[in-house]
């Protein structure tokens, strides 16, 4: 295989995005273009990328070495060179596969979801730009190139959250997402810079970094590790930078599915796995990361329990699931984390797409307490949502069970009992709030009858594909007790963090505990919400519903604080002190000028008199001087 095809994986969606954008501008300002052209161009790109990805996958599977393609020198200063390069190793091709696969399905779904929308072409332009950025992030061979993709996905996230930009709330949400992500990027850049300073001059691609990273003292590595993790926190919405993700649900649902659930938010996890050689050297940072992940998981799950907006619930569950992934990668079990990324992508995308279908069907209503009883109306959506909900709740044999269980097991085996406990508890909460959503949406009694909107096949077909995926995705990482070969561990051997052999009985015991806990959550939800009475108006309130007022606190401290500071600087300091000082200096001169100006009375005789005075005094001086 020619390694230059790696570049095409990225270029195809990029070109597609550019063409779509240009056509869209043409379409809205000059002559309308039929949507089918947009659809065709848009869907072609991720599928082509996917096929190229498959080709690389097969080639790597047959024992090919990692592909490396460096088309040109990106930057060369002071003799140190950073190349624009792409790396196709097992990790990146794994990511490419699932990103393009999920991306393709969601493209198809979006073609139905966005049908007739004014910004149809724009949507797909952004979507393909996102694909290109995400693939660049994944395929980059050096942290800097990765950062280009990293920011690119952030930009697309911004653009897509604020897709309906005439609404202030959407744009505010987009801004929030971008700025909070930028806080993370600040960390990322600092990490990059420090890394470049210490080892980057020996070469700044992953191979070189892996070779030389051990030259760096551990204290510096700790700083780098934490700084990069701050970047991951931003992108993957972990405490304390998670606040943007729930608001990001303002975007169209396919966006939430693709960007804010399946792919972009997992970039942080991917990044940590990418830098496994760094984090392997600093397990204490990893532990910190795991704790952040655990607390994020718990915290988000608690908030999700009381939310009423279907997408917000899913958003918090995303944060929670991302927390699990960070537990895994924090503890060095990168492949386990990526396994969860993989399964999560399926069931969370499915959940969002199902939710999107529901939202479309009931006419753009997102409050689950205004739905209810949709089981009969939307049988297909009902069944796929059930699969996805079971998967996220960790019920075997659906995919979520295997990955989540492996994470918990890893946590236990690393003697992180607190994390294990939190994880387990969160699993119960997850099952509870997901089934709360599920029951309220699809079951209940005394719900109002609603007029249903038609769902096109382009929306339903991807649901089926992903439902299949959500069911079977777990089997690529079967635990040892069921199968000798854990495919995903095998594939990502370098990232598995060392095999942890567990007694089969222990393993089965842990699985049992997980299942029991998950079922317990489901039972509670069943009792409370299966026959939920829609007639009794309950208004959710309280500190949990209000997300612990974190948004308000942030707003008060950061937004208000900086605005006050800004006003202070520009009004009080700049105008009040500096300009005033300058102007009063000027004023002094002007006053002096006025006084002197009075002598300029515009009377020639007076001028002559002054001239005479000058001559006279000069003469006097000469007389006195010369005697």
């Amino acid at each position: 295989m020619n390694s230059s095809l790696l570049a095409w994986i990225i270029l195809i969606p990029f070109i597609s995005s550019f063409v779509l954008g240009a056509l869209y501008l043409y379409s809205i300002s000059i002559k309308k273009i039929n949507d089918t052209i947009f659809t065709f161009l848009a869907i072609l790109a991720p599928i082509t990328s996917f096929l190229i990805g498959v080709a690389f996958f097969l080639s790597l599977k047959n024992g090919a070495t990692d592909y490396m393609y460096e088309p040109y020198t990106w930057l060369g200063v002071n003799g140190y060179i950073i190349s624009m390069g792409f790396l196709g190793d097992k990790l990146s091709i794994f990511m490419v596969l699932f990103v393009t696969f999920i991306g393709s399905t969601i493209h198809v779904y979006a073609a139905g979801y966005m049908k007739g929308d004014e910004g149809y072409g724009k949507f797909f332009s952004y979507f393909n730009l996102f694909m290109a950025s995400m693939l660049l992030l994944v395929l980059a061979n050096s942290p800097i190139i990765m950062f280009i993709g990293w920011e690119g996905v952030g930009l697309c996230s911004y653009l897509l959250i604020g897709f309906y930009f005439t609404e202030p709330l959407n744009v505010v949400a987009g801004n929030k997402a971008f700025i909070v992500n930028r806080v993370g990027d600040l960390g990322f850049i600092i990490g990059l810079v420090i890394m470049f300073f210490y080892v980057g001059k020996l070469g700044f691609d992953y191979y070189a970094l892996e070779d030389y990273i051990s030259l760096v003292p551990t204290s510096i590595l700790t700083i780098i590790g934490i700084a990069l993790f701050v970047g991951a926190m931003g992108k993957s919405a972990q405490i304390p930078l998670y606040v943007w993700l729930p608001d990001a649900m303002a975007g169209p649902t396919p966006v939430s599915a693709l960007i804010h659930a399946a792919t972009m938010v997992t970039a942080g996890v991917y990044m940590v796995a990418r830098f496994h050689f760094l984090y392997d050297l600093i397990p204490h940072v990893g532990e910190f990361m795991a704790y952040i992940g655990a607390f994020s998981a718990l915290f988000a799950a608690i908030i999700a329990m009381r939310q009423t907006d279907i997408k917000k619930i899913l958003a918090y569950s995303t944060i929670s699931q991302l927390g699990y992934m960070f537990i895994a990668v924090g503890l060095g079990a990168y492949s386990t984390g990526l396994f969860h990324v993989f399964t999560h992508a399926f069931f969370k995308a499915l959940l969002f797409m199902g939710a999107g279908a529901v939202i479309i069907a009931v006419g753009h209503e997102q409050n689950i307490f205004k739905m209810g009883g949709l089981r009969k109306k939307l049988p297909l959506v009902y069944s796929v949502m059930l699969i996805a909900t079971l998967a996220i709740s960790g019920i075997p044999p659906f995919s979520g069970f295997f990955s989540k269980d492996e994470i918990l097991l890893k946590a236990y085996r690393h003697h992180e009992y607190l994390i294990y406990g939190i994880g387990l508890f969160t699993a119960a909460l997850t099952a509870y709030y997901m089934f709360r959503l599920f029951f309220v949406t699809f079951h209940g009694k005394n719900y109002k009858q609603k007029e249903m909107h038609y769902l096109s096949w382009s929306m339903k077909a991807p649901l089926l594909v992903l439902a299949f995926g959500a069911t079977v995705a777990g089997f690529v990482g079967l635990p040892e007790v069921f199968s000798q070969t854990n495919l995903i561990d095998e594939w990502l051997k370098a990232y598995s963090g060392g095999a942890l052999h567990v007694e089969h009985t222990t393993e089965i015991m842990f699985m049992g505990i997980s299942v029991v806990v998950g079922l317990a959550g489901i039972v509670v939800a069943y009792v409370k919400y299966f026959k939920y009475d829609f007639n009794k108006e309950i208004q959710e309130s309280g500190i949990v519903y209000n997300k612990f007022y974190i948004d308000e606190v942030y707003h008060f401290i950061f937004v208000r604080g900086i605005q006050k500071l800004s006003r202070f600087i520009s009004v009080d300091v700049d105008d009040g002190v500096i300009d005033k000082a300058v102007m009063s200096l000027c004023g002094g001169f002007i006053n002096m000028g006025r006084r002197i100006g009075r002598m300029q009375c515009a009377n020639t005789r007076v001028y002559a008199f002054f001239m005479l005075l000058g001559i006279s005094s000069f003469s006097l001086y000469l007389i006195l001087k010369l005697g």
Partner: protein
Amino acid sequence: MIEASFISYISLAILLFSIGIMGLISRKNIFIIYMSIELMLNAINIIFVTLSKYFGSMDGQIIAMMVMAIAASEAAIFLSLIVAMYRLKHSVNIDDFNTLKQKDTL
């Protein structure tokens, strides 16, 4: 006793020149100002002629003559200017001719 020496002529010229300046500055009548200027020219001419004799060279006289020629042309211009200005403002007071003065100072 004052004798007609070099320095006497010079002193006379200096005095006449000073009187010209005094007239120039103190008076407002444009004719008097004009005559003061002419007086100053004459004072300078005296100095030229004196120096001409002093150095035994004709140059001073020639310059004096040219000054007179210039004074003559000046007279023509100046007097026609006065006529034009008088026509404009009906005044010979130079303080009335202040069109160039900036009215609003800074």
